[in-house]
């Protein structure tokens, strides 16, 4: 990989002058042998690395459960199957994330973000270098917290997504620590009216069972369920009525996650209704139905639409990368003569294209290389039309 970059950098340093005849050689091999070999070894490595990281994630979860619950002292056996599903899902998330992050373009962004944090990597002339830490923190607050970009797409979808993501996050924040035995509850020996929250064996909070805090704590999952239900109704309405969405949506990617989340929410609320208003009618069998829906949802997360909650981490790297590139030297289009993108971005894309097996290179008469990446999107649109006109002699 270093070889390729060196070659491109050498080429970029040369000041390229005057007109030349670009040779279009269709008999040339599609990709160089070096690139192909690189791809094969990378995909095998990525597979092995993904298995290793998936296994590590699963082991960490097991370790977290064992030690976090005081060597299973506070582990709730009733939640055994939830714990098993969590461990398997941890493996799947680790595996899929690594495979995805190993793809050349994703890898490039994560690598560059890491280099920005470590103050290394390729250097370009820059006006002022914005701090990568600040950019990443800002992006996390604006994009992950406030989800501003969805608000700009539409207020309806913003509220819908805040309800769904907020509700699910709250529900997971309550259930995972309970499943793992990290948090359990107790009462002092002399006072049954006081409730203690014990995390990792340490009492972190104490409140009266008649307090507002108690109400919120006991009903956290029900509150989460209400938000999720609002989001689900909005999402369902959109899936049924939005003509643009209906044209491109698929069952597996867009409908199934809504069905799974709805199943979890409805069976969860049914449990509450059962013990609050019907003296636990069908509670025993409902517990199992709820368990099955939750396990199905947890298994869907690594393999479907909901995986975007992990994939969007790449947005943090991209925001910092774009800010940095924006303050640096810009690439000038060979056709329009205008700046069109950060030089850093153009150079990195050339490396990514090589790794993917694309070869958009031209050779000049005197053997110099010209890369099609050095032409802006606008220049390309003009080039195609001009070349068609040339072929038609118009």
């Amino acid at each position: 990989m270093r070889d390729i970059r060196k070659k491109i950098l050498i080429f970029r340093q040369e000041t390229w002058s005057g007109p030349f005849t670009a040779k279009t050689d269709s008999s040339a091999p599609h990709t160089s042998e070096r690139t192909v070999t690189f791809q094969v070894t990378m995909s095998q490595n990525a597979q092995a690395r993904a298995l290793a990281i998936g296994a590590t994630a699963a082991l960490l979860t097991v370790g977290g459960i064992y030690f976090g619950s005081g060597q299973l002292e506070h582990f709730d056996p009733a939640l055994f199957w939830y714990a098993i599903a969590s461990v398997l899902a941890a493996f799947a998330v680790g595996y899929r994330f690594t495979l995805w992050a190993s793809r050349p373009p994703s890898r490039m962004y994560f690598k560059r973000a890491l280099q920005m944090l470590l103050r290394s990597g390729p250097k370009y002339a820059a006006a002022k270098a914005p701090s990568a830490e600040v950019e990443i923190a800002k992006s996390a607050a604006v994009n992950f917290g406030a989800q501003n970009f969805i608000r700009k797409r539409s207020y309806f979808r913003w509220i819908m997504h805040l309800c769904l993501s907020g509700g699910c996050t709250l529900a997971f924040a309550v259930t995972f620590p309970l499943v793992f035995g990290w948090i359990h509850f107790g009462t002092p020996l002399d006072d049954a009216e006081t409730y203690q929250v014990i995390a990792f064996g340490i009492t972190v909070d104490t409140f009266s069972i008649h307090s507002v805090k108690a109400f919120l704590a006991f009903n956290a999952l029900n509150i989460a369920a209400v938000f999720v239900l609002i989001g689900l109704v909005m999402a369902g309405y959109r899936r049924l009525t939005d003509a643009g969405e209906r044209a491109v949506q698929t069952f597996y990617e867009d409908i199934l996650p809504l069905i799974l989340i709805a199943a979890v929410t409805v069976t969860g609320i049914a449990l509450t209704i059962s013990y609050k208003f019907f003296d636990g009618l069908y509670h025993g069998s409902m517990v199992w139905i709820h368990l099955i829906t939750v396990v199905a949802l947890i298994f869907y997360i690594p393999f479907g639409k909901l995986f975007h909650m992990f994939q969007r981490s790449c947005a943090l790297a991209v925001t910092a990368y774009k800010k940095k590139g924006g303050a640096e030297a810009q690439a000038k289009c060979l056709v329009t003569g205008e700046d069109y993108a950060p030089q850093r971005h153009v150079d990195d894309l050339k490396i990514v294209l090589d790794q993917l097996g694309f070869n958009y290179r031209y050779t000049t008469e005197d053997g110099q290389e010209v890369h099609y990446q050095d032409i802006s999107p606008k220049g390309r649109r003009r080039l195609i039309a001009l070349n068609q006109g040339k072929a038609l002699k118009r």
Partner: protein
Amino acid sequence: MVSSFFQENEFFLDQSRCIGCQACVQACGECDTHRGHAMIHLEYIDRPTGVQTAPVVCMHCEDPTCAKVCPADAIKQDDDGIVHSAAKPRCVSCSNCVIACPFGVPKMNQGYELMMKCDMCYDRTSVGKKPMCATVCPSDALFFGKREEIERIRQEKPVNEFQFGMQTVKTKVNMMTAPEADNVPVDISDFMAGSTFQLPQSRSGAPDAALSAVFELPEIVRLAKDQPVEELHV
């Protein structure tokens, strides 16, 4: 499996027929999957020296570069060979696709943090209707229909192979080109920044605006050479 509608009907693009009326741009925004945004580009080739315009739609590459360079795995090609706009939950608005597309097609909506592109009006074509732009194009620069029909009414030949240096790109959309050509070689050297276009001396067909006397006005010639012009008297 390509649906029978796409087996029978194809998109044929002849940019040289474009009259720059913008009907396609207006119609494009009407499409449900485009949500009010025109995805087609109407490119002015070299405005100071000529009136040539060119519509640019997605060519729907068989092996789409945009999808391959997407770090978020957000760009998908369906069974019909249509390359769709970025998946909304996934797109991280990095612009890799915008810079890498050999045809300059994807558009980045920075506010939405979302790449949107021409999807051949999938809300329409998936139910057997023509794409918006081809429906309204008065000069049939954008033509959607049967291959036999285009072969019957045109002298030009539809090809779907482009040569960018050493990279061959095959597309779903056809480009009309010279009858003797099998592909469209994309040459850079003739069209570099700063160089002026040399119109061929003898041109086939009827005399047209490009040959009219207005282009020999000294001011226009100076403009074409990027030299300063004080005031235009046309």
